[in-house]
Every structure is written in C-alpha cells, then in structure tokens.
C-alpha cells in the first residue's frame, strides 16, 4: 500500500513539476517503486521535464474515462528500474476529470507502488481539486517571494479544509546571498507566515534549466547543489533525519571573503 503525495503550490512557476520529477527520480534511485501522475491536464509538462514526451500513447483522461487500464498508460522511465509516469492529456482541459475519478484512480494505483506523486497544476480551481482528491499527504512548494508565499498560505488553508493536514514545505530557488543582504525573504520569514514543517530548501541553480531542457533530472547530478538538496529531501521523505544544507558560498571566492573578513 503506497503513499499518495500531492505536490502543490497555488502559485505557478515555483517548481512543482521540477520537484515532482526530481523527488520521483530520487526515490526510485533509492529503491522505491514510484508512480508520477501529471494532473495538469491541458498544460502538461512533467513528460517534457522527464524527457518522455515522445513515448506517450495513452494518458490520464484515457484511463479515467475507461479507454484503457492505467497499466497500459504508464510509461516506464528506462533510466530507472522503478519509475513510471502517467502523463496528462494535452488536448483536453481540467473539466475532463472529476475529483471522484482521481480518488478512485489513486486507490487503484497505490497498491502497486511505494510512492505515488501527483504533480498538481497551479490555481485553486478544478485542477487543484482533482489533484488533491486522492492524496494522503501534501507537499507545498514556494519560492522566497511575497506573492508565492501569499498563494502558498491560501493553498495550505484549502488543504486543511480538505483534511490534508500538516503539509510539508519546500522552499525552492533560494538565493542565500540575497537573504544575507536583506533582499530576499529568509526561511524564518516564510515559516512565520506559513507555519508548517520544513521538508527542505533548494537553492537557485542554473543546472535545473540545463537539465530540464535535456529532459534530465538534476537529482542525479552529483555536482549540483540543487541536486544535493533534492537528494536530502528524498532521504527525509523516507524517514531519515538529514541536517539542512549549508548554503554559504563554499567556492573559492567565498573562502577568500571569509578569510579577509568580508561577510
């Protein structure tokens, strides 16, 4: 019996799809059977980010409307032994599926997997309601920006109403230097408003853009700080207690700064 986790945010563009793909890949690398579901019908992205878009034959709407079984629609990611994707439909929209159908689908899928990760679309309407319908737990992704945090707060309120209590927080695209100069919200500022447990902090990283365009996941990249952050989050999801990464500039420039005494 697997755990169904929805990755949501409210605000668009904060990193739900990137996070879903990387957590899925990370969990699969660590030995778990993972099914990723793209719930963003009409604006699907998870397949692109994973580099699987030209292997799509059937999609989520085909499954919920009975055209095929979910097993037939699943795409196995050949880079991993245990990672599967159920893609969204691109030529439909979010009214094509109902929350009840999503809940039934999740109940059917969860038996075959350790984790089912649902990539939630932005917004608070039908797409959101569909995505959370079958979920046991929620992960809220935000960036350290006022608008993203506002929307995350709204989403957390809606999740609490739907009995998805105690969602966990991922702060994405953190820029440590900007926080030090007071130009960006700190983790403490964010948690003061959102008041939920922190699952992890992912630093801003160009490698994410590069990887996405190649259809690769940064969590597999040993030289990337964001990859390391995602790997840590995967371990925390599996129950391990992993200390937060030190986001201080550890490059040569940073070391020189510290020796000279510049902060």
């Amino acid at each position, binding site marked *: 019996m697997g755990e169904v986790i929805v990755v949501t945010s409210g605000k668009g563009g904060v990193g739900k799809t990137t996070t879903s793909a990387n957590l899925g890949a990370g969990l699969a690398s660590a030995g778990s059977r993972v099914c990723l579901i793209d719930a963003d019908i009409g604006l699907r992205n998870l397949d692109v980010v994973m580099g699987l878009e030209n292997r799509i034959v059937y999609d989520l709407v085909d499954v919920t409307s009975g055209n095929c079984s979910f097993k037939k629609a699943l795409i196995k990611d050949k880079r991993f032994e245990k990672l599967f994707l159920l893609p969204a439909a691109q030529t439909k929209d979010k009214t094509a599926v109902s929350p009840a159908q999503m809940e039934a689908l999740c109940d059917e899928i969860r038996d075959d997997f350790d984790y089912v990760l649902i990539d939630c679309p932005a917004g608070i309407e039908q797409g959101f309601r569909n995505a959370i319908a079958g979920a046991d737990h929620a992960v809220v992704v935000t960036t350290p920006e006022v608008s993203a945090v506002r929307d995350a707060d*709204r989403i957390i309120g809606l999740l609490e109403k739907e009995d998805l209590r105690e969602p966990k927080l991922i702060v994405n695209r953190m820029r440590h230097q900007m926080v030090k100069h007071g130009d960006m919200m700190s983790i403490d500022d964010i948690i003061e*408003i959102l008041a939920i447990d922190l699952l992890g902090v992912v630093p801003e990283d160009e490698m994410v853009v590069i990887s996405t365009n190649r259809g690769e996941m940064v969590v597999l990249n040993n030289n990337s700080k964001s990859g390391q952050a995602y790997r840590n989050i995967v371990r925390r999801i599996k129950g391990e207690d992993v200390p937060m990464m030190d986001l201080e500039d550890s490059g040569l420039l940073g070391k020189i700064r510290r020796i000279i005494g510049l902060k």
Partner: protein
Amino acid sequence: MAADWAGENLLRFPGRGGGEPEDMSDDNTIMVRRTLRSGQSLHFEGNVVILGDVNPGAEVVATGDIVVMGSLRGVVHAGAGGDSNAAVYAFRLQPTQLRIANRITRAPDGEQSFSATPEVARIRDGMVVIESFQTGPERQG
C-alpha cells in the same frame, strides 16, 4: 487574596450582578483558536478574539472589537455596524488595511519598522490612531 466560593468575599465586577450593571456594548464574543490563512474570512456580530495570526489575505469583520493575540497582517474591520468606539488590538499590529466604523487606514508608504509591542487602534478626534497598549492605572479608557 483567597476567593471564597461561598459567595461572601467574591471579587465583584460591574455588570456581573455585583454592582450597577454598566451599559456595555454587545457582549457577544467569539474565540477563534487558530490562525486565519490567506483567503479565509470571518464575519461576526459582536467581538472577536483570535488566538493566532491573521495572515495577509485574510479578513476579519466584526461589529464590535477585534483582538488578535498574534500578528495581525490581514484586513480587519471593527465597528463594522458603525460603532466608532470599537477598537482593534494586536500583539503585532501590521495590517494591510485597518478599518473602524467608516474609517479606512493603512500603514504609511515606504519602509518602516513595526513596533514589537502590543498596540491598539481606535478612533480619536475622527482619525484612526495607533497607541501602545498598556494595562494598569495608566490604561487608556
């Protein structure tokens, strides 16, 4: 000072059957024991006490007073039925917008540091003023 529950030495409060009942405003008061998140809205005929924060994007509208035992960062409207004597109290008064009766006010533009002490907003001389909240002999009446 021991409270004698037999009734002889009970501290006596006005309006509680021990003295002349004062003309108090509507006694209807509710307690909300959680934080109001963005998008949540509370409307009440009476006073509201919130044991938690009022996050930006949340709103509280009451015909009486509003007390926030936390950070008030959303929109509040006290005295919503027209009572200019209503007040807004908060541990950290940082509302995006504050309304009492038919007066609307907001924080002055530009960077400012908010007070870290409890404050109360009320109407004095037709304007909304914010004062430090004190108890004791110097308490504002």
